[in-house]
């Protein structure tokens, strides 16, 4: 598929059920455009997006999106709702019974290690890490089949980032969901993902495990991208 204004593609990318795929690349490589295409927020100029084999254009977009959890960069929380209001918004819209909402919320709190008191806070009162965790809860509320994350750790300080990283991976492992995670950070991609797709100027430069990319870069750009992110740490040794 391809998208002209998002400067993406043409490219062909498949995500297997239950795997965690990291889409890696510098800013401007088309990572966010890719996620927006998967969600149907954008329509491809060419080609098709298929979800479990079905062309997404044939599916009601709102219903499709409820089967996909999306964590926006920075959390994207609605400032006029409390954390709980954010998390339960769609469930309430779908008229879930109260006890079902409470039960689900309980499971999620445990999973995302969010203090219960934070639920009554408004986004402006939450720390960056908490806001990101609430964003994750909101994406997981309806128990979606697929989880998309856009730079989930992007704007966090190193300590918060480290804590959340570990919690996120635990969550992915427990949930066994199909995850597509967008990041510009090689370490993050390697930490989370079974498989990495390195995006360069809208195309997939290489696809494979971290070891494959590091051992046998497909082209000079892949080699440089990996070297640039590993070298600073190696210099310290």
């Amino acid at each position, binding site marked *: 598929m391809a998208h002209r204004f998002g400067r993406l593609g043409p490219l062909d990318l498949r995500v297997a059920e239950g795997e965690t795929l990291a889409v890696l690349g510098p800013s401007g490589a088309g990572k966010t455009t890719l996620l927006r295409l998967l969600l149907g927020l954008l329509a491809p100029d060419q080609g098709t997006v298929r979800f479990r084999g079905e062309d997404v254009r044939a599916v009601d977009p709102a219903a499709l999106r409820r089967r996909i959890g999306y964590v*926006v960069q920075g959390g994207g929380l609605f400032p006029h709702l409390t954390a709980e209001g954010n998390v339960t918004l769609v469930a309430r819209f779908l008229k879930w019974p109260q006890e079902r909402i409470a039960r689900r919320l309980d499971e999620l709190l445990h999973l995302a290690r969010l203090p219960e008191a934070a639920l009554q806070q408004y986004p402006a009162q939450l720390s960056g890490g908490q806001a990101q965790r609430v964003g994750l809860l909101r994406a997981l509320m309806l128990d979606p089949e697929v989880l998309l994350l856009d730079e989930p750790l992007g704007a966090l300080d190193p300590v918060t980032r480290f804590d959340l990283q570990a919690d996120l991976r635990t969550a992915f492992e427990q949930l066994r969901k199909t995850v597509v995670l967008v990041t510009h950070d090689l370490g993050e991609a390697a930490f989370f993902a079974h498989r990495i797709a390195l995006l360069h100027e809208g195309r997939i430069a290489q696809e494979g495990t971290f070891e494959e990319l590091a051992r046998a870069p497909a082209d000079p750009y892949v080699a440089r991208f990996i070297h640039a992110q590993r070298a600073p740490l190696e210099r310290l040794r």
Partner: protein
Amino acid sequence: MILALLAVVQIGSKAFTESVIVAEMAAQLARSAGIEAVHRRELGGSRILWDALLRGEIDAYPEYTGTIAQELLPGQGDLRDRVAGKGVVMSRSLGFSDSYAIGMQRAAAERLGIRTLEDLARHPRLRLGFSNEFMDRKDGWPALRAAYRLPQRDVRGLEHDLALRALAGGAIDATDLYTTDAEIAAYDLVVLEDVRRFFPDYEAVLLWRKDLPAGAAAALRRLEGRVSAREMIEMNARVKFRHDPEAVVAADFLAGALGVRGAAQIEGRARRIAARTVEHLELVAISLAAALIVAVPLGIAASRKPRAGQVLLGAVGLVQTIPSLALLVFMIPLLGIGARPAIAALFLYSLLPIVRNTAAGLSGIPPEIRDSAEALGLPRLARLRLIELPLASPAILAGVQTAAVIDVGTATLGALIGAGGYGQPILTGIRLADLGLILEGAVPAALLALVAQALFELLGRAVVPRGLRL
């Protein structure tokens, strides 16, 4: 309230003292005959009153034969028949004539040797100030200038009572007078002789619709031939210089001349202010509510389709540039006089702030918030209701608040077209140079604007979600 008004006889008056007094007499006479009557005072000039009479918005009003013959129904034939052709009955003369005349301060006229209108032609540098209606009436300034070949260039239009005060103060040298004006004696003015008999006769009469109940018509006819010019001048003087209410002056006359008593409806200040407050609130509340219902959807549409939105904002912005007075007057042919045209004009004025703030509030929502809302799988309307409108609510509310404050102020102009409200005492007060009356309208209007402001602050706490106020 509008339905209740239909059941009673409505007597209109023009926006000058004599007309108000005579209409008040007519209303009191009708009441004395057991007919419910209201006096809708100071509705405007001759044309507005005449049209309102033909449309049935009022049932009767005082007029002058010269005005009917020259301005309202120019043509040949008997005046009474011409009027009857329009479904209107004209009374016999009330007993006095109130002609147009041109007057100057006595000292100035004597110094320049001006005695007649012909003499005016020899003094081209005189500053003339005429009442606005006289400036463009067929029997007014343009025809007078042609008849006497008057050369003056410095000619301006003023409100009649202000023109008289300007003349007394020396700001202008000559103005149009009504021959029953109390100021002629009080300010020691001379009336320039109309040697070419330019001005026709202006006998005071009452006009009423043919469908007026016979009892009411009979009551009005009791005034025929009963008011002398001297009595009229005295009554004008009492109102203008002693600031006696017109209703009291009219009642005193009726008691003396016709033995009619107790038909005056004189409101105390508190009741007057209360009545004006109700009228004012009605104007503001209805127009604002209607604007809210229309403008918020328009604002939503404008934010969805930016290009069409620009056109829309341009259009409602254009309405805002029409001077409020002009907009009110444009409404008269469409909606007549009274509260309806005023509400329509205020409604149009309220659109811009609400449409613009709604559109701006919605467009200002950050893209990541929009994306999250859409990605969550909420349908369009649910996104609008649950996310976008709450987020835009502070901006929308600010727009409504602006509209409300503008409305409270602009609604005072509604009195010019018979809508009542706080503008009524201001209008009368300006005419009578009565500061107390002006303040009776201006102070409550200012207070109401402050109350509206405070009310919307409170409303903000109820409507704007708490999370947005952190």
